[in-house]
């Protein structure tokens, strides 16, 4: 075991799969010589060479399109899109190609590309470095969508994603790269060193795709969330003093419906929280799923807390971000409903 932050855990995952499988290659902007703007690929080009850790032109559509082609020729590419906010030029290659190649060729062709991309706000990134576009991707059949909330899961899920023959969009909440964040920007930053999920095995292990994690067991309320808000939810539940069961969805698509619905059937109350905007957000799918499966167990309407339906503002970041106060208000609403 070692103490790792999320960046180190991701780098360790990449290192291990590259060592194990010579077909794994990385391509992205600044990933090679420099080691990535967030340092996730630091040292990998020195270790594996320029043919396997490849600096790319600034063309996200080209990065995704070319890595699809590499995957068709037997490689197992990991594409890095520097910020999730930059992924849109490659969107057609994801929707119309990556997600559909297996289907349209009746299983004869596939390209096992993993797209890693940092997402989310809370870093003073303004509207072009803070977005959480996961729902746009969960709407596409044929790709898997993953978002870890801690170093242990990040490494295990990333190894699973790269080894999967399905394409995966792997969102990395960058606010928690260096430490868990409970939603209070006034508090001094905390590192992963003091967090149990910052304990990461040095070697190979996997966390399976398609399985949610019960982060905290509880009896009064289920909070379904993912990414940075897992930590905010824990703090908000403590603030309200409610015995909440907190579930980290971590694989958004395909979704582990069973873990979510079993919990809500047990607690009878449910709050759904994400940082992304609310309207047509992934929370809407979660609400629908819980409603369909747990209606007769519910003691209160399902509550949703999400980012406001505005672009991510630079100056009003903490009014935008669904922090402890907003989640606590949501928890109280669900708990008080008769």
């Amino acid at each position, binding site marked *: 075991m070692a103490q790792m932050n999320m960046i180190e855990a991701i780098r360790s995952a990449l290192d291990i799969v590259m060592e194990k499988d010579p077909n794994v290659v990385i391509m992205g902007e600044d990933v090679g010589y420099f080691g990535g703007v967030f340092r996730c690929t630091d040292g990998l080009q020195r270790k594996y060479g320029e043919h396997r850790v490849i600096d790319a*032109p600034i*063309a996200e559509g080209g990065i995704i*399109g070319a890595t699809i*082609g590499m995957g068709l020729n*037997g*490689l197992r590419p990991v594409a890095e899109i520097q910020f999730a906010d930059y992924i849109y030029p490659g969107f057609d290659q994801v929707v119309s190609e990556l997600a559909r190649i297996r289907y349209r060729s*009746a299983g004869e062709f596939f390209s096992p590309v993993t797209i890693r991309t940092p997402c989310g706000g809370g870093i003073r990134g303004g509207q072009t470095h803070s977005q959480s576009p996961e729902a746009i991707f969960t709407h596409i059949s044929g790709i898997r969508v993953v978002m870890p909330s801690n170093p242990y899961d990040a490494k295990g899920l990333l190894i699973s994603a790269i080894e999967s023959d399905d394409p995966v969009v792997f969102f990395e909440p960058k606010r928690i790269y260096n430490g868990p964040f409970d939603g209070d920007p006034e508090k001094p930053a905390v590192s992963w060193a003091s967090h149990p999920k910052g304990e990461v095995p040095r070697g190979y292990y996997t966390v399976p795709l398609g399985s949610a994690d019960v982060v905290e067991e509880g009896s009064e309320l289920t909070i379904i969330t993912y990414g940075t808000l897992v930590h905010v939810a824990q703090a908000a539940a403590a603030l309200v003093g409610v015995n909440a069961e907190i579930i980290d969805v971590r694989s958004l698509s395909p979704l582990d419906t069973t873990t979510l619905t079993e919990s809500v059937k047990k607690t009878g109350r449910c709050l759904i929280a994400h940082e992304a905007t609310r309207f047509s957000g992934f929370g809407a799918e979660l609400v629908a799923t819980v409603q369909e499966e747990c209606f007769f167990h519910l003691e209160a309407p399902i509550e949703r807390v999400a980012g406001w339906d505005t672009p991510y503002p630079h100056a009003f970041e903490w009014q935008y971000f669904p922090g402890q106060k907003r989640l606590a208000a949501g928890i109280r609403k669900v708990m008080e409903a008769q």
Partner: protein
Amino acid sequence: MSTKSRLHIPHPSARPGDKPDFSYLNLAPAGSADKPSIDAKPRDIEHLSMNLVRVLDDEHRAQGEWNPNLDPEKLQVGLRWMLLTRVFDERLWQIQRQGKISFYMESKGEEAVSIAQGMALRAGDMCFPSYRNTGLYLYRGTKLVDMMNQCLSNTKDMCKGRQLPVLYHNKEANLFSLSGNLGTQYPHAVGWAMASAIKGEDHIAASWLGDGSTAEADFHHALTFAAVYQAPVILNIVNNQWAISTFQGFAGGERRPFAARGIGLGIPGIRVDGNDFLAVYSATLWAADRARRGGGPTVIEHVTYRGGAHSTSDDPSKYRPKDEWASFPLGDPIERLKKHLIAEGHWSDEQHIEVIEEYRVKVGAAWKEAQKFGTMTDGPFLDPAGMFDDIYAEIPEHLVKQRQQMLELES
């Protein structure tokens, strides 16, 4: 010059009722273009992107340095495959008109591109075609009946009923799956070629798209990546003058040939007479040799003409002169190779008619066979449960559930 700015809307040289006018095409006599060695520097051969590589002259004789000096037997093979492609297209068009398939796209007038290039490439080379490369699918070994099964979405359909007619694939023959979205295959070809170079193999990739699709971002991404990494790839632009109703000027072809699109990136471009089988073969072999030996990518523009409608849903008489193809100065690729072979004493009109007849019978027989595996109206039909397969490597729980719901409603 005016004192005001000016918005230019491109106009084709002729609309319905006008006399066809191809004076805008910059032509060159057969044999006039020089053939550089494959290690020529891109800046020394930029003129090839403005010129026109032609081998067959007006007397149907092969001229100049680009003459590939192919054996007559090989040329006869090429002619036969072009004829099979045309007969196949004609029959499938007719079949669509009879309402027996939902849609069709023919490659009439562009057969030389698919067949000459198919013959110039090696079996291990990977092709990322467009939907107007019917001949390439045939030449590389896709059976007539399998092509028809796909168009019928029947029980033997290679796509299991998931794709529009014509959007074939053939894994064994290294023919990628056709998308239906335009130009998306171009960066795939570059990535595939990069992987080949990473693995140290000598297989190259080739891709095709139309003049219209050069406006897509994927085209530019592909050229940039091909240039940056010197990928072993041939990037073909089939300039058939028309993108549905918009002429090639709307893709930016009015001032510079499409072959010159790579010049700014240092990618050599060859503008070739796309209806000249010998020129297409020769240019392809040149680019393939160059790519295979570390020389990087080549853009080839094939100047040709879309002899038919865009698709069965299109009516070109609404936007271009009816007789435009007949006036196209580069003619019909089949007629030109036929006349060359006749001029050289290796073919005859009688043989030609015989082969067409032979292929009509062959295609007719394949159609009879294909219908046994199901048509749009008569069984056997594909099991709709299959629509849930191949979305992921293994079917996830929610799709098992949806498949069950669908089957309950259908039963």
